[in-house]
């Protein structure tokens, strides 16, 4: 049976996850050290990341981001290792959750805080990318198997 999940798709997911991981890890490091965040393009980095909305159930959102992006990459690795489609399904579900979260945070920035944090915007872009890739993945999963 030919593998119907193209490798480029999985590599793209890993790359998007790495970008998201780096971005979240950067914000988390700044949060831990209390250092100011160098903002560019927009000006609200410090306001957004210090607002009450940057915490979820007492956990900094950046920490959740780190764990989430790491998991996405990890799931791809697990699929490569075991070829179990369960992991791909989890990825697809994960990217939907990720997108919903990103939309929520975009809403907060645009309408509640009226300030933007460029690193959150970067995360929104990686989320959107992952969501797109996740939907392509889902489509591939549902396609009829090609027999060699």
């Amino acid at each position: 049976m030919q593998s119907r999940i193209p490798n480029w798709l999985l590599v793209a997911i890993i790359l998007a996850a790495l970008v998201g991981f780096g971005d979240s890890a950067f914000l988390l490091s700044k949060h831990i050290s209390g250092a100011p965040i160098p903002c560019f393009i927009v000006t609200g980095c410090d306001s957004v990341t210090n607002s009450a909305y940057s915490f979820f159930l007492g956990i900094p959102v950046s920490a959740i981001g780190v764990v989430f992006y790491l998991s996405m990459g990890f799931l791809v690795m697990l699929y490569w290792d075991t070829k179990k489609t369960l992991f791909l399904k989890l990825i697809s579900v994960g990217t939907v959750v990720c997108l919903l979260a990103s939309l929520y945070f975009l809403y907060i920035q645009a309408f509640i805080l009226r300030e933007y944090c460029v690193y959150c915007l970067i995360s929104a872009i990686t989320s959107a990318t992952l969501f797109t890739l996740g939907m392509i993945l889902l489509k591939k999963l549902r396609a009829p198997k090609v027999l060699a």
Partner: protein
Amino acid sequence: MDTQKRLIIWISAILVVGIIGIGTYEVATAKPAQLPVANGSLSMPLDATDHTKGASKPEATVVEYSDFECPACAAYQPMVEAVYAQYKDRISFTYRHFPLPQHLNAPIAAYAAEAASNQGKFWEMGDMLFNGQNDWVQLDTASAQAVFATYAQKLGLDMTKFKADENSDAVKSRVERDLQSGTASAIDHTPTFFINGKMVNNPQSEAEFKALIDYAITHP
């Protein structure tokens, strides 16, 4: 996939994540680079941790960046003392460490002064270090520190605390703080004097020094 290949891929993945994670952390928590300001101004304002003596509401401030091993600094001491003696009710005088890299014992001398400072004897230790310069500048670290210990004993300091403080991270970063502020002010020699926060050319005589201070007082 055979086990070896799997192991390599997993380990590589962990390394990549680890490197990105640690790298990001280091970048995020690094102190922002500070360009030296070559316009002759004090880069770091005076604060409560500075060694400052003199008037509490000074009409002019004098800061000296100095190095206990530097012969020029020792040579300036009498002039500095004389000027201070005359102006101490009107100016504040601050000492900041700037151990030059070629002076091997300068840092430890600075640490000894800081350790003495923790017991309220900064200026006294500074004087002893300058006056006894020839006794310790040529020695190796351990021998020089033994000389500092004799100074500390003469000052009646608690020796256990003195020795602990001399080698402590807190004292080292305190000296480092001064050194970095000096570098940020583009200091390249010792002593360097700042009057009212502006670097001045080293006065060549007591009279010149006093004239500079008089000028600073009348032109705040």
